């Protein structure tokens, strides 16, 4: 079907592609798109923080520990360290490919991926042992809501990282063309920064 | 090149022509005429607007300021609308394209700072005025009475009825009907047992949502003796449209008499057919049974004998006339078995079997049978 329509088009047009678009901004479209997407994502978190604010501050419900339920601040602290270090390995991967160091790219991106996976694993483990469920009280809903939302973002980030892993193993990316590392990297940094905010508000404050 | 030149010549020609056309088309009279028509239309519009009978009859001291605010808003906004409409009408009449003008363009006016400043500033001033006035009205209608004495009536919303709790002279009691003395300030403290409702008495002009988990409130001073509709104004489910009751505003004396009757310990003592003694059907009808959550029938049904006037469910004076005890009992404990014409299923609670004892159900049936003979 498709082949037919291409041939059909062929007969009438000499010209096969669009004229190259004018670049009216120095920002890369992909980069700008990712930044705008991150603004949207920040707003999703903003809405969840609104829930946090209303339940903790406006309604004045008490925060953890609630009925002997404590948050594992220390374990989550270690987890924070893991996620933060994954931002550095991500940065390593990014600078490596800019300098044409393929080994650095591969090692960096793989470490990042593994660290992210570890984070997610510890997080799930925390859920299993934490001792309260989202339906026990609204503070629990907020806790699971915020950390779960963040976990979902880690999952999305890991999926993006996976494509980078696959592509770098298949020999893609070069010092000239590495947007495919750059853009997921930005997302990954965002996921990290967001975790620091979630950790400080939910566990520490 | 030559083509270029002709085009420029033509453009110049058009410009001259356009200028001439503009001259021809903007008679100096237009603006004056337009202002005249605009003023006239504004006056007529405002008068017409004020003549319309917008509001239901006022029933509280809050109604006055709100109705006046409406009039002020009308006076302020009719001229704005007239202005826009008149300018468009005049433009359409004076500047519409006439035959032969197909190729002409208007004068290239790009803006005029003075005008733009005016039409930013004037609405801004108007807005500031209106907002200030509205703020004054708001203070006015929410102010506590000068005497400081005020009755508090608790209002409980649930799907799909209101109940009211009084605290008169130290006696606490509930009723499915709202009774208020005239000219005394009352503060409603509104709560909800399930979803959001909204407690609105159009004659009082005031409303507030009944929100699960918090208590909301407003105050009114009723001024008109008589019955006023209570309307649920927040979508609360399938019975929302029928969640109607009546506020009875009465003289102080009548109200006192009503309080004595309503708060008198019922036949068996306690709020509505409690332990010991025979349950009182009329009391159950009017107040339900709070301890088990049985909703009062009178909240939703009209029954002359009990003086209730709810419109959520069928009018029992009509619906139960001449019906036997078995029919009435089934209608209470299994309301979805047979739905009266014009009403929907699942509106009435179907839990009376569990919230009332069988003795209580019997008492209720007996009462209803007697009352609708």
């Amino acid at each position, binding site marked *: 079907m498709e082949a037919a329509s291409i041939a059909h088009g062929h007969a009438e047009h000499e010209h096969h592609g669009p*004229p190259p678009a004018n670049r009216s901004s120095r920002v890369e479209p992909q980069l700008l798109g990712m930044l705008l997407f991150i603004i949207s994502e920040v707003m999703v978190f903003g809405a969840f923080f609104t829930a946090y604010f209303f339940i903790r501050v406006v309604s004045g419900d008490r925060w953890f520990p609630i009925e002997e339920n404590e948050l594992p601040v220390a374990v989550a602290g270690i987890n924070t360290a893991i996620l933060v270090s994954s931002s550095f390995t991500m940065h390593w991967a990014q600078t490596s490919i800019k300098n044409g160091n393929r080994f650095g790219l591969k090692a960096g991106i793989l470490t990042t991926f593994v660290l992210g996976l570890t984070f997610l694993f510890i997080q799930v483990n925390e859920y299993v042992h934490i001792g309260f469920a989202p339906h026990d009280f609204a503070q*629990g809903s907020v806790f699971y809501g915020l950390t779960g939302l963040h976990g979902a973002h880690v999952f999305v980030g890991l999926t993006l990282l996976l494509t980078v892993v696959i592509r770098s193993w298949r020999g893609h990316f070069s010092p000239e063309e590495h947007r495919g590392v750059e853009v997921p990297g930005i997302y990954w940094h965002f996921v990290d920064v967001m975790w620091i905010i979630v950790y400080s508000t939910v566990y520490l404050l | 090149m030559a083509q270029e030149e002709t085009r420029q010549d033509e453009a110049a020609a058009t410009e001259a022509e356009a200028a001439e056309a503009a001259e021809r088309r903007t008679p100096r009279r237009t603006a004056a005429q337009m202002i005249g028509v605009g003023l006239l239309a504004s006056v007529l519009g405002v008068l017409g607007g004020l003549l319309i009978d917008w509001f239901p009859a006022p029933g509280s001291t809050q109604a006055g300021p709100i109705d006046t605010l409406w009039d002020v808003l009308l006076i302020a906004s009719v001229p704005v609308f007239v202005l826009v409409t008149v300018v468009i009408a005049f433009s359409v009449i004076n500047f519409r394209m006439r035959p032969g003008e197909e190729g002409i363009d208007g004068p290239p006016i790009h*803006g005029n700072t003075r005008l733009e400043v005016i039409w*930013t500033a004037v609405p801004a001033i108007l807005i500031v005025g209106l907002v200030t006035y509205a703020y004054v009205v708001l203070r006015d209608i929410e102010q506590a009475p000068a005497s400081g004495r005020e009755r508090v009536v608790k209002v409980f919303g649930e799907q799909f009825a209101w109940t009211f709790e009084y605290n008169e002279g130290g006696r606490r009691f509930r009723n499915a009907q709202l009774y208020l003395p005239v000219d005394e300030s009352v503060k409603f403290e509104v709560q909800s047992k399930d979803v959001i409702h909204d407690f609105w008495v159009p004659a009082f002009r005031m*409303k507030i949502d009944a929100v699960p988990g918090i208590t909301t409130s407003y105050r009114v001073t009723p001024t008109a003796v008589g019955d006023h509709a209570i309307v649920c104004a927040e*979508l609360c489910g399938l019975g929302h449209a029928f969640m109607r009751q009546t506020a009875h505003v009465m003289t102080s004396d009548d109200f006192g008499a009503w309080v004595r009757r309503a708060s008198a310990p019922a036949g068996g003592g306690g709020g509505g057919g409690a332990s010991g003694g025979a349950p009182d059907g009329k009391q159950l009808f009017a107040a339900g049974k709070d301890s088990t959550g049985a909703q009062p029938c009178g909240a939703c049904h009209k029954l002359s004998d009990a003086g209730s006037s709810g419109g959520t469910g069928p009018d029992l004076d009509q619906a139960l006339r001449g019906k036997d005890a078995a029919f009435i009992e089934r209608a209470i404990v299994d309301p979805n078995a047979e739905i009266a014409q014009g009403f929907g299923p699942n509106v009435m609670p179907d839990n009376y079997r569990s919230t009332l004892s069988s003795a209580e159900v019997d008492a209720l049936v007996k009462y209803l049978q007697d009352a609708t003979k």
Partner: protein
Amino acid sequence: MFAKLSAPGWYRAALYLLIGLGFSYVLSIGARAGFGYDPVLDGEAVLQIALIAMPFFFLAGMGAFDYWYHWAAGRPTLPEDHSNHGARRWQDYFKVNTDHKVIGIQYTVTSFFFLFVGGLIAMLMRAELAAPGRQFVDSNTFNGLFSVHASILIFLFIIPVFAGLANFVLPLMIGAPDMAFPRLNALSYWMLPVAGLMMLVSFFAPGGSFATGWTAYAPLSETSPIGQVFFTIGVQFAGASSIATALNFLVTIITMRAPGMSFFRLPLLVWANFSTSLLVVIATPFIAASQFFVLLDRALGFDFFRVAGGAGGDVLMYQHVFWFYSHPAVYIMMLPGFGIVSEILAVKSRKPIFGYRMMAFSLLAIVVLGFTVWAHHMFVSGMQSWIRVPMMVTTAIIAVPTGIKIFSWLATLWRGVLHLDTPMLFALGFVTMFTLGGISGVMLAMIPLTIHVSDTYFIVAHIHYVLFGGSLFTIFAGVYYWFPKMTGRMYDETLGRVHFWTTFVFFNVTFAPMHLIGVQGMPRRVADYAAEFADWNLAISIASFCLGLSSLLFLYNIIASWRGGPRAAANPWRALTLEWQVSSPPPIFNFDSVPTVVGGPYEYGVPGAVHGVFKGGAEVPQPAGAREHAAAD
């Protein structure tokens, strides 16, 4: 057969849908068994998972993800493969297509389908409301009707139809060959029919469709039957679609303008969509979150809005989160219309738009102010009372930038040469009707009045004056205006005018009396009402049927003209903006070479003014009027 099932398209989509259904069952049963729930097979659980999962299977089946999948897997991709670009046969409109013009038409046609569905539902509502008491439907069905009516018209008509029109014309206007992310654009479109269908089939859910209004306030939306979930999840897809489109518009406008197209040479439609897209990107996540909360509460027993038994939820939080999106959403539904009207009024008055810069700045002012007023929908909600007065002030202030726009349009008309054809009539109708709706909005900002009229038909009147008299009039104007460009055909002018006048008259007869019955005390969202409102309601219902019939004129005009209307010239309106400088319909890649912009977009009446020139010499044919004028002589 196998080839059909493995190539992207409807067959594969059907197959994937089946797989998705199986997946939902397996996931649901597995999860319930794993957590030890009884029974393991729960219809509602399966349904909730299926509603989330199956759209993705469908989209994958249609081929919306194929390219990305190939890319992610590191397989060779062909960025220059344009086999999915452009439509050569009508069937191409039923495929995943990356051409912004095809997507624009897909968007517009789909949205209009939903206009007629939503309008038909309104007809049923008006039939029920023609007399007090029960006519045709019980109260639960009625609640479902207005909920679906509003949700369809807002999320599946007004918002996407603006995105559709802009999709078609915006890249042309700024001299771009396509949108910045054509494949994302296609994905945005294909999420729409999914969301719309989801909302419509909710009528078949046990317990009826979602019936909590388009606002779906918790906790009612958490205790109502399963039909509610069709809204909760449907909105997510509609929302994701609009975020993706907005992001696409922003990137396109920022990075793909033609040389010389500075921000202050952009046509105002582009400015309007720029502002709207900012609103969408920032605000839409909030409605997504509000529905996440409801879904989590319903499906997993979270306590966000549960207060019973000391659960500690906060009911009003729903409303804050919801309106933090949905107030900006009303400007999402109006600003693109402002853009359309600015285009039409300038072209049809043959004058430059008056106060171009203020027009652009007032859009941005509305965007900023729009985020500061959400609680004006909550004046009687029982929230902290101190929030009300600041919100009243900010709300009323929005009248100022909006007023700037209205007055500038009036000044644009003044001394122009007004071509009173159908697009112009609708544009003028818009200016008057929107002013009326806006004024009733300013009245609603006044707290003491809102305490009385909130949740009455006065609100219903306001809604329809701004959404029908406002947004829908601009949409009609825009569709007539760009019809020649989009289809290459002319519409029937006489029929168009008849459509305008019948719509204008019956619109007012339908909705103006609602102001009165609202103030008199008729609540909204009721299937039954007090006898005193019977006469007005009967009149309103009759007028609304006429209004419905008048929209059939439009339908006929569009269909007949598309099939057999006279061929349209490239630039029948003698407009300066770039979309009119290419053929009607435009060539598959828009331009042979990107034009260079050398002047403003609205220089009508300025001798020799030029907006854009194409490489290769010839400047864009100028409408200085001379040519046609000479011909007319």
